[in-house]
């Protein structure tokens, strides 16, 4: 049997990769992808807990479905914003989005 800890470890690793991607990507789309990665890492966490701790009532799995939905909504909104910013600024380089500062 694969132990619960391995799933948690994997989820943590994915989460950290997502953080790294969020912080270092230059492309906005890449950043959005990293956010999705982070959310999916959490999904893994929830599924693992649900499977190992409380398999009878699949609360965690239901929670996961909710999270997937919301992540999709968030991603669509994010992409819409990226699109409008691209229309105005003609770039998707994170370093260029510096109008509001100090």
């Amino acid at each position, binding site marked *: 049997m694969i132990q619960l800890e391995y799933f948690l470890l994997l989820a943590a690793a994915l989460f950290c990769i997502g*953080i790294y991607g*969020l*912080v*270092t*990507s230059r492309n906005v789309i890449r*950043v959005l992808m990293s956010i999705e990665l982070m959310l999916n890492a959490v999904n893994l966490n929830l599924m693992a807990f649900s499977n190992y701790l409380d398999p009878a009532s699949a609360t965690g799995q239901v929670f996961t479905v909710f999270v997937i939905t919301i992540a999709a909504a968030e991603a669509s909104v994010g992409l819409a914003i990226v699109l409008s910013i691209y229309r105005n600024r003609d770039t998707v380089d*994170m*370093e260029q*989005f*510096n*109008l*509001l*500062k*100090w």
Partner: protein
Amino acid sequence: MESIEAIYEYAWLVPVLPLVGAAIVGTGLISYSQTTSTLRRPAAVFIVSLTGAAMVLSFLLFFSQVQGHETYTRMIEWASAGDFRITMGYTIDHLASLMLVIVTTVAFLVMVYTDGYMAHDPGYVRFYSYLSLFSSSMLGLVISPNLLQVYVFWELVGMCSYLLIGFWYGRKPAADACQKAFVTNRVGDFGLLLGMLALFWATGSFEFEVMGDRLTELVTTGGLTTGLAAIFAILVFLGPVAKSAQFPLHVWLPDAMEGPTPISALIHAATMVAAGVFLVARMFPVFEQLPTVMTVVAWTGAFTAFMGASIAITQNDIKKGLAYSTMSQLGYMVMAMGVGAYGAGLFHLMTHAYFKAMLFLGSGSVIHGMEEVVGHNPALAQDMRLMGGLRKYMPITATTFLIGTLAICGIPPFAGFWSKDEILGSTFEVSPVLWAVGWLTAGITAFYMFRMYFSTFEGEFRGTNKEIQIQLKREQLMAMGASLGPGAMNSKELTLDAEAHDDHGHHSEVPHESPIAMTFPLMALAVPSVLIGLLGTPFANYFEAFIHPPGEAVEALAEAGGAFDWSEFLIMGGSSVGIGLIGITLAVMMYRTRQLDPSAIADRIKPLYQLSKNKWYIDEIYDVVFVQGSRKLAKQVLEIDVRIVDGLVNLAGFVTLVSGEGLKYLENGRAQFYALIVFGAVLGLVLLSGIT
């Protein structure tokens, strides 16, 4: 009787009626000043009738109290927070009702007098409103039931005095004088406030008797050292020291003569200065338990009495002479309180109020007459060297002035004799040294008062003597700082002679008697000056029966007073009359018959003469020590404030602004940086929480 009770319930009207008058006239002056200034007679009638009504009410209360009505007190709660409660109200007991009568009668007569005296003054209506305000404050003071309320009215009375001394505020000496009065009184009031608060802290109450009882308790049980209690009481005594012009806070009273004469009579002779003595009387339950304090009070009074008299003998200004005389007589009153002669002190307060008011009003009448001859220059109109022989021209004034002089000298059967004699008698029982000081002062008093009388009313009229006028003007200019004499470059010197030959500024060659508005009060006041002493004769002392210190039973007093000793009376009375006669004789010889030459005597005792003429140089000392000294101190403190305190505050502000400017660059506008900070913070917090 119910009607009598009703009067007590309406006793609060006594101070309120003049206040209403002052408020209405004052508001009229502020809002419609043109109209109100022209309504002179109506305003005067209005205010005088309000004061008259207050006077009638006071008399009714007095008679009720004489007939044995008990003390009536009415209080309302003014502020309370938990255990702490302040009550205000009024109390009518024997002393209060007596003071009410004195204040209202003198105020009424002074107001009538004002109509004549200030008839040509543009500030006529303003004067009446101030007078009314003062009367209201003084009346409120005497019916105050506790020390806190006394303090409130004390300050009000001081403020009215300030307004009235500086009434002719365009004149620099008047403006200076009213400031001096205010500042000097402030020193005394500060002591009073500190003492009042200290006593409240120690005893928890502002009521006089309660304070006295609790203070005695604390001292006997050791909760408070006698020294500390004495310090508290002396702090409270500082208030009367200033208000009643005792040494060392007496310096304002002579300068206060810059105000119009009616107020010199009302405030600085009869009532306000007596407020100090009144407060000592009210604080008697506290003071009499502390022998140190009583000694301080007695010696202050004695010293002041002597000092005032010693300065009065060389004064040339008629009002200043009377001012020093007032100071001296107040010293007597304070000394009487200090030796425990409660009744005697208050008796002298009453007699002095009447005859001193009359003397001042008489001097006002004289000045009024002199102004017709020499013009409206106080340096000329008030100087006795320019007067003389006024008895022919102003007989009523002269007669009443003579009555007042006899009264103050302590010649029986006039009022002053009985009161002064009682004081001297009580003082002798306590301390012969004090008695000696008082006795000598009585002689000096007689001397200078008759000097004044003779210089003013007897002999030849010197008002038209040009040489004296020039000399007086020269003295006035020298006092204002100009340098005269050969070689002086002052243009005023040239005009002096020119003015002397100028006829403008006076209307007649000889003075005339004053109008009835002014002479009626003089005559009215002459009556009590003669007769009121008979209320307090040692053989049938109605006064003592009426006015006694709280806590002393009437029977005990009657017993003590009953043992009247004729021989004692004759010795004491005789000695005081004797020294009075010696003083009068000296005055006669120097100023009437010219057998002795005053200037020769002055030359013989030159240093003493200068000391007396320059008011013991106290004004000069105060100027150097306090005025210049505090200015220097203020300059130093200003340096510290600007450099150090301001510097610190500015530094704090500067540091904050600079850090704001620096920290704002943390927001560099890059979203990924923000995300990094978020993750960093989370990591940091996990580590921190995990470790702790």
